[in-house]
């Protein structure tokens, strides 16, 4: 019951942007195995599909596939709803609060996704979060639509994916 409530809460926290503006993309995540050992890389595949009627430009890490976090806000919650902190970037303090920032990806390349087409990339969750504790984790990502594609809003938009449950075993 508590689990269902948490899922509902997550969905409520990150409503799709369609409420204000129809999203031109859909974002889907999957993992090769939903149950993994605590010392195993946890791969998360991210598929972004252009569901609009026009080409859309997205951003991507300059290097080879495997760093989908360069274009995605990645959110991981433990079984009691706590947000896991990023471990790949700097930690700063603002007004007494610590912020565990993601690694910055300033230099990203543009990719064009035609209508009906998809682009795929992946990331390794355990390189971004400490997921060594056995248990269930809820994962979702929010794909960034760059500011220049958000005009006239001029600010990046984030389109959420489906949620995924991953079980980490001893």
């Amino acid at each position, binding site marked *: 019951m508590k689990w269902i409530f948490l899922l509902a809460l997550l969905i409520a926290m990150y409503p799709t942007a369609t409420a204000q503006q129809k999203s031109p993309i859909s974002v889907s995540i999957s993992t090769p195995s939903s149950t993994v050992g605590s010392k195993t890389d946890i791969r998360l595949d991210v598929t972004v599909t252009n569901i609009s009627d026009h*080409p859309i*430009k997205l951003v991507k890490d*300059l*290097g080879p596939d495997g760093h989908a976090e360069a274009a995605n806000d990645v959110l991981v919650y433990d079984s009691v709803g706590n947000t896991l902190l990023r471990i790949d*970037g*700097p930690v*700063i303090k*603002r*007004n007494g609060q610590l*912020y565990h*920032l*993601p690694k*910055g*990806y*300033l*230099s990203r*390349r*543009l990719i*064009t996704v035609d209508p009906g087409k998809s682009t795929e990339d992946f990331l390794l969750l355990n390189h971004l979060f400490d997921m060594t504790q056995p248990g269930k984790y809820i994962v979702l990502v929010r794909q960034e639509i*760059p*500011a*220049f*594609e958000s*005009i*006239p809003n*001029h600010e990046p938009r984030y389109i959420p994916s489906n949620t995924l449950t991953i079980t980490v075993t001893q």
Partner: protein
Amino acid sequence: MVDGPDFFFITPCANTPPAPVISSVLPSAFFAGETTSITITGSNFIPNNNPNGCVPTAVDTFTADEDVITGADVVSPTEITATVAPEADETDLSATVWVGNLDENSGSEIVATTNASVLPAPAIQWNGNTISTADGSNPPTQNAVIGQTIHLTVNPSTLPSGTTVTYTWAAGGTNIGGYTVSPPIQTNPTQSTATVTATSVSSADLTTYWLAPGAGKIPVTYQYCVNIPGLTDPCSAQATAEFTVKGPTRVSVTPSDEKFYAVNNPPETLEWVIKFNGKATSPSGQPGQYTWVQLVQSISETDTFADGKQGTCGSGVALDTSYPYDTGLSTSDEPTNPLNLTDQSGSEETGTNENLSMQMFLMWNPQTDSSSIPVSLGSISWTASGAISFDSSTDTWGEQSGSKPTPASGGFALTSSEPTWSVAINGDTLEQNCANSAQ
């Protein structure tokens, strides 16, 4: 009997004449399509108007296809002058020089021969077809597009052994011999170069690329020269081909949606946004591919840190991030200055000041062949700046100052100058340099 030294060797016609001997022919090679005077040197020639009234030495020069001789004069027992004029389309490149003394007793001729060569008339070929004329007539017009590989070959593949040949080409219009980006596709370049080479006009073949459409017909000429002894004019006639060169029309790039702002929620950043909206009409039947290349003209950045250290970084002319920068007819840039850097002592950033000067090129590759190149249709320069300081009393970044991306006056400039660079830079490298240089 005959008087004078010139006729010393001539025997009376009643007797069998001596066998003629050819010791040399100068020049031993002559151009097809042109008239050339040659001199045959030897002995036992029977001159015209010899005092004995003998039949003069007969002279001929021929190929497998035709007689190429147009006149001859047996000047002396040792010299014959003649003119030869092979047809321009002569394909047999070996000629025979023939002389014969008539035995008036038997009616037979006593002959001597030697070999000469026909130098082919210059002709320019494209994709195996001859596209030029060398007689002043109008050549058939060829159609081409900018960026297309124009590889022209010529016909004199077989020349007399030992002949030294020099080639002279001239191509009108704005052209280059090549545009090389290395490595050819770069998503994360650490080393990158782009170079332009001039069209080589002294090679046997011509490879060129036009960078701009021509208002009219663009000529290409070719001739070759040889080192044949005795050839008064060692150069062939000039072959001329003509091209109409097309490219995209109604090309424009309009910048829009320029913005400059600070993000004050972690991760904190200073950001600029600019969008480029391109328009162009490809030549009929040649959609090609539009791409973008952005050059950093200059970047300078100074970052300050809580421990009082200051880091500086920057760049001169460099490829921005990747090649190509983007594809299609619209693109954008979103430079970001991160405000959460730490120096090597672990101190957090407390201020930054950055100036950007960039140049965005719209390119078009006709994709007509595997070697076609992207050609610059024009570029637009733009600048931006920004500065911000951390306010420790409020524990937030203060109000930013600076300018949003500002296109240069005049906006998009139609230029056919290819972008070149010898280094690449990206934002991550730049910022790392700033943090690492703090002292």
